[in-house]
C-alpha cells in the first residue's frame, strides 16, 4: 500500500515539474544566475572594463611625443567608454524628408560624466597607435541607489 502511495506521489511530482509554470520558474532561476555577475544591485561589486584607443597626430617632434599623445588620446577614449557604461548616452537624431526623399540625416550622441578611481590596467603601444585598458570598480551599496534615482 505504502509503495503505491509513494509511486503516485512521485508520478504526480514529476508531472507537476514539467508544467509550463514550473519550467518558467526554472528558466527565471537560470536567467538570474546568468545575470548575477553583470547586474549591479545593492549587495554586489561589479568591475567595468574598457579598452580605449588612440592615434598619434601627424606632425610631432619625436616618436616619444607621438606615443605620449596617442596614449593620452587612448585614455580619453577609455574614460568616454566608462562614462557611457556608467551613465548612459544621450542620443538625438533627426531626418529631413522632402517629397518622400531624405535630404538630411544626422545623429548626435552626448556623454557627460565624472569618474573617480578608475585604474589603468594595461597599456599597449605600437608605432603610432596606443591601447589603454581601464577598470572601474562600482560598489553596489554606494552607487546603486544613486544610479537608480538618476534614471527616475
Amino acid at each position, binding site marked *: 500500500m505504502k509503495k503505491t502511495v509513494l509511486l503516485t506521489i512521485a508520478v504526480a511530482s514529476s508531472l507537476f515539474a514539467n508544467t509550463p509554470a514550473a519550467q518558467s520558474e526554472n528558466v527565471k532561476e537560470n536567467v538570474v544566475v546568468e545575470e548575477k555577475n553583470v547586474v549591479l544591485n545593492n549587495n554586489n561589486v561589479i568591475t567595468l572594463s574598457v579598452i580605449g584607443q*588612440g*592615434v598619434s597626430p601627424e606632425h610631432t617632434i619625436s616618436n616619444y611625443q607621438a606615443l605620449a*599623445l596617442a596614449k593620452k588620446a587612448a585614455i580619453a577614449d577609455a574614460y568616454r567608454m566608462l562614462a557611457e557604461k556608467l551613465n548612459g548616452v544621450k542620443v538625438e537624431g533627426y531626418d529631413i524628408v522632402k517629397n518622400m526623399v531624405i535630404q538630411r540625416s544626422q545623429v548626435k*550622441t*552626448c556623454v557627460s560624466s*565624472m569618474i573617480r578611481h*578608475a585604474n*589603468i590596467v594595461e597599456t599597449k603601444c605600437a608605432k603610432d597607435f596606443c591601447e589603454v585598458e581601464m577598470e572601474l570598480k562600482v560598489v553596489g551599496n554606494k552607487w546603486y541607489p544613486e544610479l537608480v534615482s538618476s534614471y527616475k
Partner: protein
Amino acid sequence: MVSRIGIFLQITSLALFGGDYYFTYSLTSDNLVVSYEKLQISRKMTQTSSKPVAFFDIQNSKKATTEKEFVETHKNEIVELILQNNTTIKSTSKIHLGDISERSIVRSLPTLVNVDFKEDFGIIGIYEQTP
C-alpha cells in the same frame, strides 16, 4: 614668540614634507587624436590644514635634482594619477551621411597635490577636492 615658532614650524614642515601644487588639466581629442592640451601648475602660497587622502610614489627616473625640477620632469605621471583620482569627461559625436566626427574633452578641476621629493623617488599626495 608664538608667531616666530609658528613661522619656524611652517618653514620646517615645508622643507620636510615638500611643497603643495595646484594642477589643472584639460585635454581635447578629435577622432582619437589629441588636438589640444593644457596643463597649469601653480605652487600653493598658503598653508594647508588638511592632509592628502591618497599617496603614490614616482621613481626619479629622469634624475631631477630639485623638487621643482622633479615636478617639471614628471608632470605627465602626476597628471595621470590626478586623472585616476578624479576626472570629468564630456564627449560628443556627430554622424552625418555616414561620416562620423567625435570630440572628447577630459578635464580635471584644480587639484591640490603634495610633492615630497627624495633623491631617488618622490611621494605624491593628492588632497580631497573641494567642490
